[in-house]
């Protein structure tokens, strides 16, 4: 028993710890940005000076003391709509990202560990999903079943999950020949335990890259669908929808379309900063190895 502990300590590399990822400036800024955005979205409806769905004046009025960001195409207060317009994104995007990364990782680790026909069957069926552009799938299904939030989440997971699985499988394959995995197999550790205790901790950095990337893409797909009219439906306030409602008024009242754009930009950049920072940590670690 003593020997196994010594050997484990000797051969099991220290996974890239969370603290090393946190040490990356980009990761920290990304997390700060996402936390700030989520807080703003959460308390936004309380701060909103007007009802986001009710007209308060004439359409496309320029900013004034009454309406700090002016009014939109139907005379509603832009500031109130911007403050309330992230509610759907705030829960749909993180859930889509988390689900696609969790399911993708589970499939990838099982495929990599089991190998053989399990690997082949799993990855080939994901290829079929990858063959269909995500926006098209979402457009078709939403036009059939209607724009329900849960359906949108499910479709985004279907679109993003195969990519996650490909990347994580690629990261897990080289681990299978490492001493500590061979060792764990040799002493009869169950497969599930190996996957959870040996493989999973060692793909934590690519996992974080994927999570950041997929969060930013989820926000992108969700707001794009709202923008083309197949996501959140009017009269709800939603950033993507606001851009399309007020796009033709850019000349008269640019704030009505540009304010929600600023919010979308901040939200998506939060995710990609995390991805970028984690990717740099990986590059540095591999450069040293």
């Amino acid at each position, binding site marked *: 028993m003593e020997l196994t502990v010594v050997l484990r300590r000797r051969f099991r590399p220290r996974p890239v710890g969370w603290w090393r990822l946190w040490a990356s400036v980009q990761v920290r800024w990304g997390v700060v940005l996402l936390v700030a955005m989520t807080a703003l979205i959460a308390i936004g409806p309380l701060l909103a000076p007007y009802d986001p769905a009710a007209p308060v004046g004439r359409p496309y009025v320029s900013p004034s003391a009454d309406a700090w960001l002016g009014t939109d195409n139907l005379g509603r207060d832009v500031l109130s709509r911007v403050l309330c317009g992230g509610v759907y994104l705030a829960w749909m995007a993180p859930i889509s990202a988390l689900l696609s990364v969790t399911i993708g990782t589970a499939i990838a680790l099982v495929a990599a560990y089991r190998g053989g026909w399990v690997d082949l069957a799993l990855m080939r069926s994901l290829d079929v999903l990858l*063959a269909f552009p995500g926006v098209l799938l979402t457009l078709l299904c939403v036009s059939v079943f209607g724009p329900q939030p849960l359906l949108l989440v499910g479709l985004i997971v279907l679109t993003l999950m195969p990519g996650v699985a490909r990347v994580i499988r690629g990261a897990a394959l080289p681990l299978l020949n490492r001493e500590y995995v061979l060792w764990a197999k040799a002493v009869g550790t169950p497969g599930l335990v190996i996957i959870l205790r040996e493989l999973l901790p060692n793909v934590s950095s690519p996992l974080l890259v994927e999570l950041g990337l997929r969060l930013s893409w989820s926000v992108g797909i969700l707001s794009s669908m709202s*923008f083309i009219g197949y996501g959140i439906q009017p009269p709800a306030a939603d950033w*993507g929808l606001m851009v399309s409602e007020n796009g033709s008024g850019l000349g008269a009242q*640019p704030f009505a379309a540009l304010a929600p754009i600023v919010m979308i930009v901040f939200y998506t950049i939060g995710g990609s900063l995390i991805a970028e920072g984690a990717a740099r940590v990986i590059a540095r670690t591999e450069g040293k190895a």
Partner: protein
Amino acid sequence: MSVDSPNDSAVIGVLAWAWPLLGRLMQGVLTLLAVSLLIFLAARALPGDVANMILGQSATQDQLAALRTQLGLDQPLWWQYLTWLGGILHGDWGVSLANGQPVAEILTLGVRNSATLSGVALAVMLPLSLLVGVIAAQFRDGFVDRLFLGMSMVANAVPDFVTGTVLVALFATTVLHVLPAVSFIPPGDSPFSYPDALVLPAITVIIPGVMYLARLVRVAVIDVMATEYIQTAILKGMSPSRILFRHALPNAVAPIIPAASLVAAFTVGGVVVVEYLFAYPGIGSALVDAVTNRDLPVIQANVLVIASAYFILNLIADALAQRDDASTQQGRSQA
């Protein structure tokens, strides 16, 4: 891997490259069949009755029944699918339910306009990303490089309609009025007759593409410049421009070619949003119109064309990446 003669190794190389590709192609045909079935079923599942929509509320039951028979809607579903698939293979794409125009005609116009847009975008994108990537690599870790890395992160994070709307605000409405915000191209006219209508949609596609590809070029150039033979060339006193154009650049092009076809695939997949934004008359906006009008034959045809193009471009990307892998492996085994 030991290789007996150079001739054998070439054959093995080609086989190693072509064999998985053949498998991918077979798999691709099956995938497209599955996609066509999915499209067919999805289009059939759209709510509302087609015959009712065409004839309006005043139609009698007899008229409705007659039209359903004429459209083949009273046949079993599998038979409808096979008839549709057979028709497509024979070049008979059906007629639009909205205006009676042959689907093939609508499709030809849309494909030509969308292909023009993507083609122009790619033609600008590739040389531009080489240029930007090389410049960033030259100023590695300097101000220009950091600025580029930051901009590329933003450009790749934000969705296309955000980039496009900002461009419209900058060049068409709020700040300057030099370009049209809406791409009006009369049906039947070539987009090249209206170059200013093409500019903003193309730039919307080009910006994220360049920012993505230039990153790959930057890394490739940095890697090549660190290799021994470039270091030797520098020590020999070869001029920097000669090193760049004769040695570094050819090696930097290789990794971006498969990536470029991937970008092309994404462009095709994302065509719906950009065309909707600029009301550009391509397959993307035709699809959105058709979905709004419940125009089944047009929906099916458009989705099938976009999905096939997306699939083929992805396949090309895979093939090119695999050939690169095979040739580097072969190079290693001979070294």
